[in-house]
C-alpha cells in the first residue's frame, strides 16, 4: 500500500473513523457456508469482508503419540498459497503461516473443543487423526479470525468416517466447547477489531484472544513489534470475549 494511503487511513482513525465506515469494535460482514467439500469429513467456506478461505477436515485412523496413547490427534495446517495474495510465495510455510496455524490449533486444543479421549479406537494402537487444513484463497486481512471460525465451523459438521474403515457407524466429532478467536490491532494507541488488509499494514501489533463458551480465555497471541500496555491488553481481552460470544451465537450453534 502506498504511503499516502497509509496516511489517509491513519488520519481517518485519528478522527475516530475507519476506511469502510465501521466502528472500531465492529467486524466486517461475515458469511459461513458449511459442507462445501464432499471429499472432506467436514468443511466450511468463510468470508470476512474481502478475506476468503476454505477449511477442510480430513479424518483417518492413525497411531497415537506415545505419551497420549488413549487420545486422538489434531493436526492443523495453514497455507498462504500464492493464489491468495501477490505477496505470498510457493514453498514450505513461512513463519506467519506457521504462527497462524499454531494459534488456530492452540485455540481448539486448549479450549478442549474436541474430546480427544473419544477419538481413541484402540488404546496405544489406533486413534482418529483429525487434520484441519486451512486453504486461504483471498487475503483481505485478518486471516486469523477467519481461519479460526472456519476450523470450528468445519469441526462442528465433521463426521468420524468409521464405516469406510470398517470401524462401525459414522458419528459426529465429539465437540465439548466452541472456541472463537477475535483479533484486534493497535494503531497509534487506538484499538480496532477485525482489521482489514490496509489496517493490518499500518498496525504495529495484533492481539488474538480465543475464548470459550463460558467466557474464559483458552489462548492468546500477541503478534507484531509494537509493545502494548496492560490496559490495552485488558481492554482487548474484554471486547474480544464479548465479540466471540456474539459470533458464536450467530454462526456456531450446534
Amino acid at each position, binding site marked *: 500500500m502506498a504511503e499516502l494511503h497509509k496516511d489517509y487511513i491513519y488520519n481517518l482513525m485519528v478522527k475516530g473513523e475507519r476506511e469502510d465506515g465501521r466502528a472500531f469494535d465492529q467486524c466486517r460482514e461475515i458469511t459461513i457456508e458449511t459442507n462445501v467439500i464432499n471429499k472432506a469429513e467436514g468443511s466450511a467456506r468463510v468470508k470476512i469482508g474481502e478475506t476468503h478461505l476454505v477449511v477442510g477436515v480430513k479424518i483417518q485412523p492413525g497411531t497415537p503419540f506415545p505419551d497420549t496413547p488413549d487420545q486422538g490427534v489434531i493436526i492443523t*495446517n495453514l497455507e498462504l498459497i*500464492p493464489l491468495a495474495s501477490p505477496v505470498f510465495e510457493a514453498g514450505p510455510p513461512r513463519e506467519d503461516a506457521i504462527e497462524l496455524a499454531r494459534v488456530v490449533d492452540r485455540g481448539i486444543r486448549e479450549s478442549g473443543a474436541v474430546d480427544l479421549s473419544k477419538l481413541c479406537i484402540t488404546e496405544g494402537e489406533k486413534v482418529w487423526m483429525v487434520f484441519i487444513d486451512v486453504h486461504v484463497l483471498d487475503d483481505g486481512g485478518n486471516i486469523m479470525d477467519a481461519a479460526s471460525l472456519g476450523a470450528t465451523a468445519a469441526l462442528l459438521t465433521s463426521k468420524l468416517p468409521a464405516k469406510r474403515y470398517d470401524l462401525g457407524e459414522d458419528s459426529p466429532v465429539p465437540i465439548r466447547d466452541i472456541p472463537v478467536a477475535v483479533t484486534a490491532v493497535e494503531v497509534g494507541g487506538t484499538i480496532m477489531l477485525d482489521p482489514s488488509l490496509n489496517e493490518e499494514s499500518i498496525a504495529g501489533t495484533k492481539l488474538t484472544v480465543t475464548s470459550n463458551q463460558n467466557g474464559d480465555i483458552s489462548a492468546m497471541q500477541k503478534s507484531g513489534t509494537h509493545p502494548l500496555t496492560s490496559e490495552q491488553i485488558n481492554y482487548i481481552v474484554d471486547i474480544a470475549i464479548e465479540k466471540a460470544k456474539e459470533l458464536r451465537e450467530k454462526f456456531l450453534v450446534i
Partner: protein
Amino acid sequence: MNKPENLIENGIRLDGRKPDELRPIKIEVGVLNRADGSCYFEFGGNKVIAAVYGPREVHPRHMQKSTSAVVRYRYNMASFSVEERKRPGPDRRSIEISKVSREALEPVIFQEYFPRSAIDIFVEVLQADAGTRTAGINAASIALADAGIPMKSLVSSCAVGKINDTLVLDLNKDEDNYGQADMPVAITKDGNITLLQMDGHLSRDEFREALEMALKGCEAIYEMQKAALMEKYPAQLEGDVIE
C-alpha cells in the same frame, strides 16, 4: 465404490450420462479480489479455482526472459480435495500436470508483449473427481482473460476415456478408476491441440475416434467459457479475439 460389473449399460453411464455427454459445468468469473484475474470452475464433482497475477516482475531475476514474458503455472491439490488426505506441497504428479497445463496455455498468450515479466497462473483444486487438470486449464484460460492478458484464443479442455470397450467423454472418478483408457485434450478455438496425454489401451482407430470426440467436447466447453466471459464483460468482448 467397488468395481462395478458394468460402467455403461444400454448406452447410459452409471451417473446417467450418454457416452458423449459432459458433466454439468458452473463458471464464475472474477471471484477473487487480490488476483488480477480469477475463475471458479465446477466440472461435475471437480471444484477448482484459478488466479492469474501479471504481467509482473520476475523473481528470481535470472528467470527473466529478455524478449518475452515467462509463463508459470502451479497446479495444486488441497489436502482435503481427495478421499485419502494428500500431503501438502508439490509431488511428481502435480509437477508434471503443471508443466503440460502451462504448455497447453502458452501458445495462446502474447508473451512477446511483456518482456522481462512474469504471468503467474495458480490453480487450486478444492475438490477432485477425475479431470482436475482439464478443469484447471479451463479455469485458467478464463482467469487469463479476466486479468486482461492479451490472448489469441481461449483454451478449452476435456478428456475422453474408454469404459467397457466404449469411448465416452469426460470420465468421472469411478470411470477413471475402473476404465480402460483416459486421454485429456486441450484445444484452441481453431481446433489446434495444445494438450494431449493418454494412458490405457486404445487401438489406432479408437484413438482417431476418441480425438474427434474430445474436440467436440472442448468446443462445447469453449461456448460456455465464452458465455461466462460475455456475461461479465458484455461490451468489451464484441468483436474481440475471445469471441
